[in-house]
């Protein structure tokens, strides 16, 4: 057989019409100009995205420069916010952002992980699909809608059914977290609304991470006589750890930067650092949203813009870390390990 092939090699292709091979010519592969134009167009499109980010940083920095030069690092560590005497410090707002996000995550993380584990490991498929869809739908609701609900439903409800009873209880009222006259629009409302807003994000990213773990890993545990819960706790969650942490940080990034809904429910007042959940507060985002339109002097505007710059940098870093963790886990799972335990 081999020798016959060699003899009439021209007929290898099964006796088709013998068109002479022509490698040099003006075929489709030669229209280099169109290819080149296409390449450049796509490259420019991607460049636009980078240019926008760079532009934002540069413009924010230039606009904030008067405040940066005047207040230096004091800006980060003082709570004064006095437009009349032009005395500005952002500590109150930095604290408000971190504190509200902290409580939001404390509430959202257990719920999100519970939901993600349920959807990935336990739920039958007729529950999994519609519930996953609804959760993703939650993430698409505009934040102003959450804000309206917060103002008209959540805040009054909290005030009436949670805060006032706690405040009226002599023992509970002494706890530092509850020391303030409850008014509904406060840190607690902001933390809760943030928790509700970040839960769909953390849930859906965590669920995707858990679903990416190969079945054979779970099977290995079941085959050793492990129960469902032992398998989840000792094998599935450790496998997904970095990615789930990434999902949580992604949620944190959302919570730090969320503006509209928080501004609508946090109360937007306060002059000193207050750990009470019943006291109104500010976040970096809410102070900008509230005061930028009425910032009458250049230095006032520069101070607000510096807060914006800080917020931008922090959320960029938080998001970058989160995405790296998620990416790292996904890659790790796909390559079947290679991670140092």
């Amino acid at each position, binding site marked *: 057989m081999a020798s016959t092939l060699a003899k009439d090699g021209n007929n290898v292709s099964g006796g088709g019409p013998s068109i002479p091979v022509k490698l040099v010519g003006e075929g489709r592969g030669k229209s280099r100009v169109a290819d080149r134009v296409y390449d450049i167009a796509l490259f420019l499109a991607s460049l636009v995205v980078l240019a926008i980010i760079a532009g934002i940083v540069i413009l924010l920095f230039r606009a904030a420069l008067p405040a940066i030069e005047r207040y230096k690092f004091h800006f980060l560590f003082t709570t004064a916010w006095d437009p009349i005497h032009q005395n500005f410090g952002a500590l109150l707002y930095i604290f408000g952002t971190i504190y509200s996000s902290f409580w939001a995550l404390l509430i959202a993380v257990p719920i999100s992980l519970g939901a993600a584990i349920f959807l990935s490991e336990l739920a039958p498929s007729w529950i999994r699909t519609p519930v996953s869809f609804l959760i993703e739908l939650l993430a698409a609701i505009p934040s102003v809608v959450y804000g309206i609900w917060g103002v008209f439903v959540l805040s009054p409800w909290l005030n009436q059914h949670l805060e006032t009873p706690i405040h009226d209880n002599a023992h509970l009222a002494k706890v530092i977290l509850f020391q303030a006259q409850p008014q509904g629009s406060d840190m607690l409302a902001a933390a809760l609304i943030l928790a509700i807003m970040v839960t769909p994000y953390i849930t859906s990213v965590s669920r995707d991470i858990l679903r990416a773990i*190969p079945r*054979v890993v779970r099977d290995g*545990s079941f*085959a050793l*006589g*492990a129960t469902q819960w032992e398998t989840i706790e000792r094998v599935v969650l450790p496998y997904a750890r970095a990615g789930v942490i990434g999902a949580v940080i992604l949620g944190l990034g959302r919570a730090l930067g969320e503006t509209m809904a928080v501004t609508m429910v946090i109360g937007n007042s306060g002059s000193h650092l207050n750990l009470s959940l019943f006291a109104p507060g500010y976040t970096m985002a809410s102070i900008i949203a509230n005061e930028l339109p009425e910032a009458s002097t250049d230095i006032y505007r520069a101070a607000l813009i510096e807060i914006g710059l800080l917020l931008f940098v922090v959320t960029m870093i938080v998001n970058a870390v989160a995405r790296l963790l998620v990416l790292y886990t996904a890659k790790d799972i796909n390559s079947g390990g290679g991670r140092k*335990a």
Partner: protein
Amino acid sequence: MAETISKNNLTKNLTVREPIIVDAQPVNTMNVAALNFYYGKSHALHNISMPVPKQRVTALIGPSGCGKSTFLRTLNRMNDHIDGTRVEGSVELDGQDIYARGVDVVELRKHVGMVFQKPNPFPMSIYDNVAYGPRIHGVTNRKALDEIVERTLRGAALWDEVSADLKRSAFSLSGGQQQRLCIARVLAVEPEVILMDEPCSALDPNSTFRIEQLIEDLATRYTIVIVTHNMQQAARVSHYTGFFLRGDLREYGETSKIFTNPNDAETEAYVSGRFG
């Protein structure tokens, strides 16, 4: 070319185990009777009846999709984890039906362990991988665990390669080492039966050779059922062979008989390499 080579030539090329272990009356650890299996409406296994002889290696062979892996997974109820599956018939382990009401699958899987196609170590150290089974079954004493880890790693012919650093991540091992670790992990639970689902298909020839040696060694103490695509492997390591085709068990018998003188025409065609 294929048609010029007689089937006798081909079967001669397979190394068939010398019939040293022909049991006059094999003792059966497991016994499968009239087993039917369904994935939803699809009828995947048809009325399978087959023994699993004690402390012998039973190979399951057949072309892809013939049901041999599905069958293997019915032996420790791994199919329970797949939605919409249904089992009829009985699978007995030491005389008890594992599908009877009230059977604890956790307890069952302590007796019937499983090694998978792709090595699937857990994301933890070598030590913790092996200690995983004993720990979930309640062994907490450090000395007892140390002893189990060493004994089973030796049993899986891995101890000499890893004893220097048991705290290393299991992922740092090679594929063949990972598979031996997975075998050690199963041994640590002290099962009676070990199911192996194409344990060498992801390994290089050298690692395959080591696993095969290990299987022969383990067969002196454990009952082993191995699914394999590799007919030479079935011929080399097994005492008994079942040939599956389209969800039927076409033929079951001593490996030497299946490979040299099968009763069924399709078994003969398969083992002589004419399809599959």
